[in-house]
């Protein structure tokens, strides 16, 4: 080989060799020709598949237990099922491999060093090839930070109580009006059954003039939101609308008045029955629900979100 070729070995090996850099205090390739040691990767070899299995079980738990709907819209539930399956599959493959390594014992280690001697002669750099030829001596290593970071979803999922987005998240985050349009005709069901999304879309689409809304009977579910600047005697009901997942959900608000709704604490789920009206807020027309009754005993509905692409007329 010429000098120039030797001076710049390819850095793309990073991805390959990175898997098992023996970056340990005990030293580098002077220990073993392949540059990897069995001691340090033992713990990792066990933890890696176990964490994958744990993630698979966690996903399955979310699907079966129903908490999945706090995070994603039902049309995507199959994704969680798929993820659970794949996590369990890959984790299981790792566990089987781990088992084989443990059961293989000394004989595989001997085979390993024999292979490494042979490999030294016609230097196979690829760890894939190394561990391939000594198949039972599988010593892939990943940076420990990678393992730690992978625990974050599990930690968040298990330690933080699973709840949907609520009033606190809605503070100052109501969607721009442009979001809540899109109707070319009014929904088919009776207005007295409309949920907050239907009301706002109907109002903002301009299908009917403001006057049409005056006096319409309504029964709307939402949670109390604390909005600074709410006129006295009035309160704001909020609702989250999910399109695909919580990350792209947007918040809705509906002004309401009367029946002591303004005394209720934030986050309280209420069903407000009454009739719709139109008032002028800061130069723009807005819906206001004039309450005849406010029921604060309903608790969180199931589902908590309005799923725009799954059941946009439901959850009321």
């Amino acid at each position: 080989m010429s000098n120039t070729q030797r001076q710049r070995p390819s850095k793309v090996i990073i991805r390959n060799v990175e898997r098992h850099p023996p970056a340990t205090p005990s030293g580098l390739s002077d220990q073993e020709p392949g540059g990897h040691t069995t001691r340090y990767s033992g713990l990792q070899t066990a933890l890696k598949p176990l964490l994958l299995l744990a993630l698979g079980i966690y996903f399955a738990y979310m699907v079966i237990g129903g908490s999945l709907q706090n995070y994603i819209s039902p049309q995507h539930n199959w994704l969680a099922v798929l993820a659970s399956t794949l996590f369990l599959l890959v984790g299981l493959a790792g566990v089987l491999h781990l088992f084989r390594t443990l059961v293989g014992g000394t004989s595989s280690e001997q085979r390993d060093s024999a292979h490494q001697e042979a490999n030294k002669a016609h230097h196979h750099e690829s760890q894939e090839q190394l561990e391939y030829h000594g198949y039972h001596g599988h010593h892939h290593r990943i940076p420990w930070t990678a393992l730690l970071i992978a625990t974050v979803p599990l930690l968040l999922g298990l330690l933080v109580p699973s709840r949907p987005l609520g009033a606190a998240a809605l503070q100052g985050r109501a969607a721009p009006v442009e979001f809540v349009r899109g109707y070319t005709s009014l929904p088919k069901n009776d207005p007295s059954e409309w949920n907050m999304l239907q009301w706002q879309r109907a109002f903002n689409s301009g299908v009917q003039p403001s006057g049409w809304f005056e006096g319409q009977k309504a029964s709307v579910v939402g949670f109390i939101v604390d909005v600074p600047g709410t006129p006295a005697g009035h309160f704001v009901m909020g609702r989250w609308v999910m399109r695909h997942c919580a990350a792209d959900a947007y918040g809705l608000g509906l002004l309401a008045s009367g029946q002591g709704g303004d005394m209720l604490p934030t986050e309280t789920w209420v069903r407000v029955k009454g009739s719709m009206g139109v008032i002028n807020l800061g130069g723009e027309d807005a819906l206001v629900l004039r309450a005849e009754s406010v029921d604060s005993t309903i608790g969180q509905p199931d589902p908590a979100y309005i799923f725009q692409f799954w059941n946009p007329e439901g959850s009321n």
Partner: protein
Amino acid sequence: MAQRTERIRKSELHEAQAGSSLASMFLLGALALAAVIIFFAFAGNPGNDAASLLNSFSVRFLSIFIEAAPFLLLGTIVSGLISTFVSEEQITRLIPRNPFQGVVVGTFLGIAFPVCECGVVPVVRQLYNKGLPISVGVAFLMAAPVMNPIVFFATLTAFGFGPVLVGRFVITAIVAAAIGFIFAFIARRSTVLLPGISSRTADIVLQPANTGGVAEDLRLSVWARLGHSLSVAGDEFYDMGRFLIVGCILASALQTLVSQDSLLALGQGPLLSVITMQGLAFVLSVCSTVDAFLALAFATTFTTGSILAFLTFGPMVDIKSTLMFLGVFRRRIVVLLILLPFLMTMFTSLLLNLLNIG
């Protein structure tokens, strides 16, 4: 001979460690940034207590992760299968002689070989070893991370059938082909590739992870090779997953803690939104199979044009791929490989913003 091997190995390992610690530094830096954001958010959000902020953050984080994880797993499994069952000869036979036809084929080759942007560089390097024309490799490099079925379904899942889905693929194809054509004019192997890439003798030292050697060893049964693919997939999940999770943390933190007005200010300016999303895409370095779900987090505040910049520029260039390009191309060429996609995707997205499309 053995001494030289030892020295090469050591320098490669040092470089590997450098690359690995660079990636780790980036990740720690990103996490530190998230921590800073969180700290300032608590300071500036007296109304919201820690518990509700944590809940909002957690819900958003998990929602992105739940949608993205299956696609990441699919990508790593397919990558593992390719590395075990497909040989590079099969690929090079598909390429026509004419460099311009070759560029077009290279642009669409990813449809048959769904590789993440991380998997594509070793593949291209190996193909260069086998004599692939530079321009074709570059087109494939730029296009393959997006032009494949997994990314198609991920984007479809995240955004539905619409301007984002169509735009992503059209823009990527055009930009990748254009860059490939540019390289067809300027490229001579000696000026473009690092020494040692384009000769067969380099094969000995430069076997990548995805070598066909595994596939060619027919002594192992299909089951064993499948098991091997799954093992590789598991490791790749950790390797790639850390970027995804850090990306999720940042995206969720931004959404939860930064005020809507600030986000809108960034997200609605025709040029500012584009550059912000390109910068975000570069820094977050998320796999192309799942970046659509991260982009979703900004769908309410950023223009469609800028979201498309995120989805077209990110898969072509980011911190990860830049590191890997440096292992194949000379430094000046790497600069070109960063600048060309940056300018082209910026131009198309700016145009879309100004024309108010999407």
